[in-house]
């Protein structure tokens, strides 16, 4: 891969409220760019991106897909996470893989809570952003409405770059403001037609183009002077200015179209190539900084192949047949297939198997992957989502992404005894794929507890458990781990006598039970003086107390926060 190779790569994630059309838009991009021969659809379950059974029958994504196409000699990696509120962990991890994003707003889906939640994280990362208004084929579409909504809910001021040509069901194409042409396209063919702007649209296009010129000129004193003097900027100045503005986050271009009608894709694909940063562009703004896992020293890498290899795993896929695949963003250097790498998050060496380029469910073997690339790695053993992998002779560990902890818990009970093993094995694998799930056995109640981000999340986990591992469970409300304690100090005698044959067994002790402050647990002491109980019997006394502690007198819950002293006996 040459210098040119790196420059001509874009890694982009799609973000939106659930159901705004990310997966459909990705499908249309792949179709328009010639990466797939047919335009698949959600309705027919034929998109490249949604292929898992859980996605097909829900008609919505449940896990992040990776896709790839090529446009104007540039490779575009597209990352399509699910938009559902309870699956936000997928989007948050996907952010580690990319240098930019496309924010999709659907005319009907609007901007909802799930998007607002992830938006603060996206803003904190300062990811350059393109906006796409989808569903222009619907009658209710309004560009002004979307601009106002983005301003109010997301705090961004989008700059329209394309306008609808025709409206509602009569939508034929878009007016490309930068190319000053009409671009029409159909769903049957990936080719598009380009025509001059018709007379009756000239005024609207002129005004909209003026706004683009102003937005670019405002960012730069020299350009502003020239704009004021000449009345306009050259095409080259415009494109350069837009690129700088987008990458600095001061300009958010707004494109529009219809994913299911294959309309508006050309200006969007052009913008990805022309305005969004390459991995190197991005690294020049946000340095690749981490810590040396042994010394804790700050270390950094450059996004070039000459630097030592480093990368972040942003997704793990466990297939009962194929085994484990780890999706990695290479940040620096080159990763070779069948080599040894170091997992600096876990402090262990790993042998990696084949490397794959991914297109939905298809995996194509590649010999290596250079800085900026995204690949799937086969056969890693201990590596989990979020881990840093690096050259074993040049260690670096990148900061870990903090995911929200689960909030909804259920006790689960295998439907049959034969399922017990499968349930625990299957759930552990599902958790590796989805770190926002948790599964444990509660020490007090002995229940198996499954926790997730919400009902949908739990349902989904159980569905996968059934399909992939053949195990079925029943859900219950989890038991509350109540405990018991005491309010006042009390004393009592315990006496045991048993005559068996010649040897008599005899034990007699006086105990004092006293409350301890909350959270102090249990303390045992011996205050026996003068050998009332022989010293070597004291441990037996303690054992007896500890055993009795497991079952309180109220309802049999464990007893805590008390001090027991043995002070007399015989």
């Amino acid at each position: 891969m040459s210098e040119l190779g790196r420059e001509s790569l874009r890694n982009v994630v799609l973000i939106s409220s659930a159901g705004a059309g990310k997966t459909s838009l990705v499908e249309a991009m792949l179709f328009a760019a010639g990466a797939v021969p047919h335009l698949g659809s959600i309705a027919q379950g034929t998109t490249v991106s949604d292929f898992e059974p859980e996605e097909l029958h829900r008609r919505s994504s449940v896990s992040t897909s990776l896709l790839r196409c090529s446009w104007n000699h540039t490779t575009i990696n597209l990352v399509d996470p699910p938009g559902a509120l309870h699956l936000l962990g997928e989007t948050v991890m996907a952010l580690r893989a990319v240098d930019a994003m496309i924010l999709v707003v659907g005319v009907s889906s609007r901007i909802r809570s799930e998007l607002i939640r992830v938006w603060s994280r996206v803003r904190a990362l300062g990811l350059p952003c393109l906006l796409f208004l989808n569903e222009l084929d619907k009658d209710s579409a309004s560009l002004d409405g979307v601009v106002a909504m983005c301003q109010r809910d997301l705090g961004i001021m989008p700059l329209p770059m394309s306008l609808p040509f025709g409206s509602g069901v009569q939508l034929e194409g878009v007016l490309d403001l930068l190319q000053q042409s009409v671009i029409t396209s159909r769903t049957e063919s990936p080719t598009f037609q380009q025509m001059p702007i018709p007379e009756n649209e000239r005024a609207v296009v002129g005004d909209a183009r003026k706004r683009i010129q102003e937005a670019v000129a405002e960012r730069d004193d020299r350009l502003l002077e020239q704009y004021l003097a000449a009345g306009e900027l050259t095409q080259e100045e415009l494109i350069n200015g837009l690129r700088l503005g987008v990458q600095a986050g001061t300009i958010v271009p707004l494109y529009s179209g219809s994913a299911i009608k294959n309309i508006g894709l050309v200006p969007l694909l052009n913008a990805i190539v022309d305005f969004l940063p390459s991995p190197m562009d991005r690294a020049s703004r946000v340095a690749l900084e981490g810590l040396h896992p042994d010394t804790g020293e700050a270390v950094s890498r450059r996004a070039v192949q000459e630097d030592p290899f480093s990368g972040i795993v942003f997704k793990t896929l466990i297939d009962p047949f194929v085994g484990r695949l780890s999706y990695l963003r290479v940040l620096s250097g080159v990763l070779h297939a069948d080599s040894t790498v170091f997992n600096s998050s876990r402090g262990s060496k790993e042998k990696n198997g084949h490397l794959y380029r991914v297109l939905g469910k298809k995996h194509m073997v590649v010999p290596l992957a250079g800085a900026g690339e995204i690949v799937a790695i086969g056969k890693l053993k201990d590596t989990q989502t979020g881990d840093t992998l690096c050259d074993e002779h040049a260690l670096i560990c990148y900061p870990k992404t903090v995911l929200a902890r689960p909030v909804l818990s259920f006790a689960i009970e295998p439907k049959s005894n034969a399922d017990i093993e499968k349930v625990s094995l299957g759930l552990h694998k599902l958790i590796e794929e989805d770190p926002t799930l948790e599964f444990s056995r509660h020490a007090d109640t002995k229940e198996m507890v499954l926790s997730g981000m919400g009902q949908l999340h739990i349902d989904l986990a159980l569905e996968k458990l059934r399909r992939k591992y053949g195990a079925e469970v029943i859900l219950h409300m989890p038991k509350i781990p109540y405990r018991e304690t005491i309010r006042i100090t009390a004393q009592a005698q315990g006496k045991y006598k048993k005559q068996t044959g010649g040897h008599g067994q005899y034990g007699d002790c006086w105990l004092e039970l006293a409350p301890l402050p909350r959270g102090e647990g249990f303390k045992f002491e011996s205050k026996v003086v003068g050998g009332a109980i022989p010293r070597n019997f004291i441990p037996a006394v303690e054992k007896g107390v500890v055993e009795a502690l497991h079952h309180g007198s109220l309802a049999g819950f464990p007893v805590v926060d008390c001090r027991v002293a043995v002070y007399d006996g015989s």
Partner: protein
Amino acid sequence: MAFKIAASMGFKKALEAAHPVLLEPLMTVEVEAPADHIGSVIGDLNARRGRILHVEAKDQTEQITALVPMAELLTYATTLNSLTAGRGSYAMEFARYDEVPRELAVRIIEVHKVETHAAAH
């Protein structure tokens, strides 16, 4: 062996004399909700025997920190969703154990006895 049994017996006797009480786990709950829903969120937390510790404004949202018994939070995810039209989120963490109010404790003990009885048969 004899001392072990004697100690168990002695402990049980002493326990009954020492005013045993029931403890329940309390969770520290951090709720983030849009300012216009804050009233109903706080009202609901109070109804769940929660104690509001802290309320702080952050941009358009408010962050509420409260101490709430775990038993009252089993279906909170669903409740918060409907209280805030999907805009609220929360995180929780075990805080400590605390005494269950008397009348409630009587009920819990009763239910638990029935359950263990049923399980034994």
